[in-house]
């Protein structure tokens, strides 16, 4: 068996879960059929959707997220399924609890993989390293835990039949983490990591108010808003929108950088985008070196014109 830990938002499976299922199915030659586990609270609704994708579905009601709780639940499911491979989404949270699981299983951990396959009885993976600048190929013997980098894999289709559903009893460790306050950023539209279009604003926009136009352009294109570290540090935008080494890594079809200079640390979060477009008044800005399309000009003039052009495109 191969086990997929299915990320969800309480209502639906996340896109990342459907990517992880595709990856799991690719490995059935060495790891067998695909089981899934849902972890969290009030799982009944999302279970209806999830059971259409896997042969066996486990439900682990463990309450709100903690790394320890998720690792314990995934471990219980892995033991129950006898899985030699566990697949999870390479979200920040996914990457926080999977090392615990791998350690407990005595498994190799392959993080944030772009592609996975097999070589004999081994799992082969490619991933980025050195701030997204190097592509490396890794190999590990079973058991293996791996995470899937978002936006790398086609979404799985449901199976013809529904899987069996079983509720797991998970022994939660007494780890002594008490959540006192949780501030969830209310996101409208698509999430940054999963977006196929990202429109990012930099410090050169001059003010937090100018981001209203960045949002407008992102909305028109069906994309998500990103921000640079300088913008987040200045308190103009929430941290959840930050792209770069200490923020999110995105790989959209097109990344539109507005008044972003393009430091190495920022590039680490976006340099694998399929296309990169940039608007900057400084023709020497490093962002132009990695851009496919660059407009040298004042963002305060070009951005409103981009919004008008995008509106025309929509009509």
């Amino acid at each position, binding site marked *: 068996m191969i086990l997929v830990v299915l990320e969800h938002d309480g209502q639906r499976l996340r896109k990342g879960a459907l990517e992880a299922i595709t990856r799991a199915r690719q490995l059935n030659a060495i790891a067998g059929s695909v089981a899934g586990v849902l972890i969290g609270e009030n799982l009944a609704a999302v279970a209806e959707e999830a059971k259409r994708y896997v042969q066996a579905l486990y439900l682990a009601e463990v309450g709100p997220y903690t790394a320890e709780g998720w*690792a314990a639940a995934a471990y219980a499911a892995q033991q129950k399924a006898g899985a030699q491979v566990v697949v999870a989404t390479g979200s920040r949270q996914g990457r926080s609890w999977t090392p615990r699981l791998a350690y407990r299983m005595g498994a190799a951990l392959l993080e944030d993989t772009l592609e996975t396959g097999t070589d004999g009885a081994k799992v082969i993976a490619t991933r*980025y390293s050195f701030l997204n600048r190097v*592509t490396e190929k890794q190999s590990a013997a079973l058991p293996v835990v791996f995470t899937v980098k978002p936006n790398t894999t086609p979404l799985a289709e449901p199976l013809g039949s529904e899987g069996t559903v079983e509720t797991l009893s998970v022994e939660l460790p007494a780890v002594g*983490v008490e959540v*006192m*306050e*949780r501030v969830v950023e209310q996101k409208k539209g698509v999430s940054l990591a999963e977006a196929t279009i990202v429109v990012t604003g930099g410090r050169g926009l001059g003010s937090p108010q100018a981001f209203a136009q960045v949002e407008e352009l992102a909305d028109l*294109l069906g994309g998500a808003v990103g921000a640079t570290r300088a913008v987040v540090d200045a308190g103009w935008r929430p941290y959840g929108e930050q792209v770069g080494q200490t923020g999110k890594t995105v790989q959209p079809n097109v990344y539109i950088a507005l008044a972003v200079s393009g430091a190495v640390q920022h590039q680490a979060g976006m340099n694998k985008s399929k296309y990169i477009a940039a608007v900057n008044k400084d023709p020497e800005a490093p962002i132009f070196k990695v851009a496919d*399309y660059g*407009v040298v000009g004042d963002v305060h003039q070009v951005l409103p014109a981009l919004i008008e052009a995008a509106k025309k495109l929509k009509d």
Partner: protein
Amino acid sequence: MKFIAVIRQVPDNEAKLRIEGGRVNYEGATLILDQMDEWGVEEVIRLKEQYGGEAVIVALGPERFEEAIRTALAMGADRGVHLVTEASLDPITQAQALADTLRDEAPTLVFTGGQQSDWDSQALGPAIAEALGWPVVTWTTSLELEGQGAYAKAKHDLDEGAEVVRVALPAVFTTQQGLNEPRYPTLPGIMKAKKKEIRKVPIAFEGKVETLEQTIQERRRLNKVIDGTKDPVAAADELVRLLHEEAKVI
């Protein structure tokens, strides 16, 4: 109290990387204390200054890692422990190799970088926590101790948002920007660091992950430049046209 920072030495972010024989070649590269680990070093020094006790640096890696340990000692940490191996080990195996040393040191807490800039891995902190049976708080942006070091109140980032947790110590924390502003080593600090103790512990572990090949695959960019200084509207129209008709991405 005792505060430990686990650190690594990595190539400078700004440095150009060279590949030779399917591997990143470190020769001639500027090697530095990982910038995300620097936040951990600063934090353990601050905690020691505030609460007393000791700030200890632990590193696992080849001989050259000693330079990074000295940098941390020059910033103000008290002593170092260097687990020496020339083998390149994956984070899970490193956690296993670090566990005995960290358990024997019996610290109040352990810090390590949120993501190492050579591996692009976020696994070391959580794996150490699992090895020790301690809780982990990843992407920590602020931390204060409570109850004479029995607890820590920490704020940390989630995928969308943040949370404040109260965690029983000992625990492992990983760093995130905003945690602090690392100090620069001073000249007297550098002089003093030369005399500080670094205990060397040779280790022999076998990794679970084999790196078969490293390559630099830079995507070829079109580098088309449109002048938008004179007619920003025409430039914007042209950009939208190219994205729609040529790239077909909007």
